[in-house]
């Protein structure tokens, strides 16, 4: 027993320089930008007498980049690891571009508005820092989420899974270490991620990869 206690003390002592943020529970809210998601191309083909195809027109579809809102609650699991649950909402535009019309139509860009909800969880790991009082706390993280996308008019729903991996920094704007103070820290979180989506709105059934970036303010208790 004594040996175990000794080991914990040693670990704690070594962990001191690591850049954990003070406080156990974190709330944050902010904005998130997600990049465009190509949905693929399809041709409106007619069959010819030889069995080949004659293109009536072409179409290319994308789920456009959009800015949405994101909220997060994180709990300290260890000195360097936070577990988080998050939710985001955005209204990206699904846009199909019609070109190469056989009958010389000018073509068209035909959009619809999508409502997108993402609810999930993940882990953030604070990267070690030599300075225990550093106001910039870098972290890396990853997670998985349930993806729900509603087509225009909310008559049709597409669901899927969204995975993310990336990293960022937390800028501590205020940090208090006295035990009786409820709020232990506050600051700004900036991160960049890669988002991989499976299912949801997809025309070709393939998973999609898009960049994302977010900025939020947080408070820790």
């Amino acid at each position, binding site marked *: 027993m004594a040996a175990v206690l000794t080991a914990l003390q040693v670990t704690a002592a070594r962990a001191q320089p690591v850049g954990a943020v003070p406080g156990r529970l974190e709330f944050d809210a902010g904005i998130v930008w997600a990049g465009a998601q190509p*949905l693929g191309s*399809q*041709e*409106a*083909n*007619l*069959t*010819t*007498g*030889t*069995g080949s*195809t*004659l293109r*009536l*027109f072409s*179409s290319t*579809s994308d789920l456009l980049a959009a800015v949405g809102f994101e909220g997060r609650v994180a709990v300290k699991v260890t000195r360097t690891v936070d577990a988080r649950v998050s939710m985001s909402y955005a209204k990206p535009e*699904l846009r*199909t571009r*019609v070109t190469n*019309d*056989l*009958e*010389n*139509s000018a*073509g*068209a860009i*035909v*959009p*619809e508005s999508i409502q997108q909800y993402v609810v999930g969880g993940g882990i953030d790991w604070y990267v070690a820092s030599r300075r225990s009082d550093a106001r910039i706390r870098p972290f890396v993280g990853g997670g998985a989420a349930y993806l729900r996308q509603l*087509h*225009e*008019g909310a*008559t*049709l729903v597409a669901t899927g899974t969204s995975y993310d991996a990336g990293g960022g920094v937390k800028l501590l704007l205020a940090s208090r270490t006295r035990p009786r103070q409820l709020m232990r820290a506050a600051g700004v979180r900036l991160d960049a991620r890669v988002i991989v989506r499976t299912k949801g709105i997809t*025309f*070709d059934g393939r998973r999609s990869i898009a960049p994302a970036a977010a900025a939020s303010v947080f408070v820790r208790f």
Partner: protein
Amino acid sequence: MRRIIATLLAIFLTVPAEPAFAYLKFGTRVNGRQVTLKWMQTPVKYFVSSRSAVPGVSVDDFQAAIGRAFAQWQAVPTSAIAYQFAGLTAGLPGEEDGMSTLGFRNRPELDRVLASTNFLVDISSGALLESDIFFNSSFSWSTAAAGEVGRFDLESIALHEIGHLSGLGHSALGETELREGGGRRVLGAEAVMFPIAFGSGTIAGRTLKADDIAGISDLYPDGDFTASTGSISGTVTKDGQPVFGAHIVAFDPATGSMVATFSLNAQGQFSVNGLSPGPHVVRVEPLDDAEIDSFFDASLAVDIDFKVSFFDRLVVVAAGGDRGGVTANVSRK
């Protein structure tokens, strides 16, 4: 029982004036109401004329080829239509004998008609009682698996005519060009029910397309067709006025499939049924790739003086639902 024979050639059909139908079907008026012609009892029993041999096609070849064509329509999983070969008959197609008969007849005066379908209709109910298909033996025919140069593919033409026999009208999902000396050449079609056949030697018309499948399923829905597909309805206008006879194509950008219809009444209304759930591109075009009377009564004023255009939004179709209120505005050429 009052009966009337309506003779409808493959290139000619009557059209219901209203309501707006999802797919061009044959119709008749019963007590002042427009009624869709269809078989009330299935399987539809058909006979083969024992006088159906022509050079290159034996009676057995004929029976096998049309059997394959019937089987394709029957295999549509979302349609309840079924057919049954009832035997050979010494009769010929076109005879009012209570038997739906398919066979060859020599009609050289119909120099642009490969085949045609006749109906015997109960005008008190709109029920089909008998339907004969004749194939014009003044043309050269083939049932070869890969087709034969200079001969028309019997199975392809039978597939089209059996669509008529089942109650379907023509689809305009195709493009043509005028031939020197008259007539049109098909550049491409995405419906077996396009009114003009491919040239001789090809078997490209042997496969049902999404438009044909939507049409037969709309006429004889089976299984979860109604619940698993949706529709788009609305109106076509030009200068604020309704357009009659505009061709409306619903294109699924996820699959590339196309299903089409027309604005079929004086209000310019249309309805496209049998669409897969998801967003669709709606294209509106004038009916300028076949003779108007291939689709509509020649006395009806079909407006073809407008440019091809696209509805300005993706139209989202939900399973079992109708996305109504789509107003497509077109402009003059």
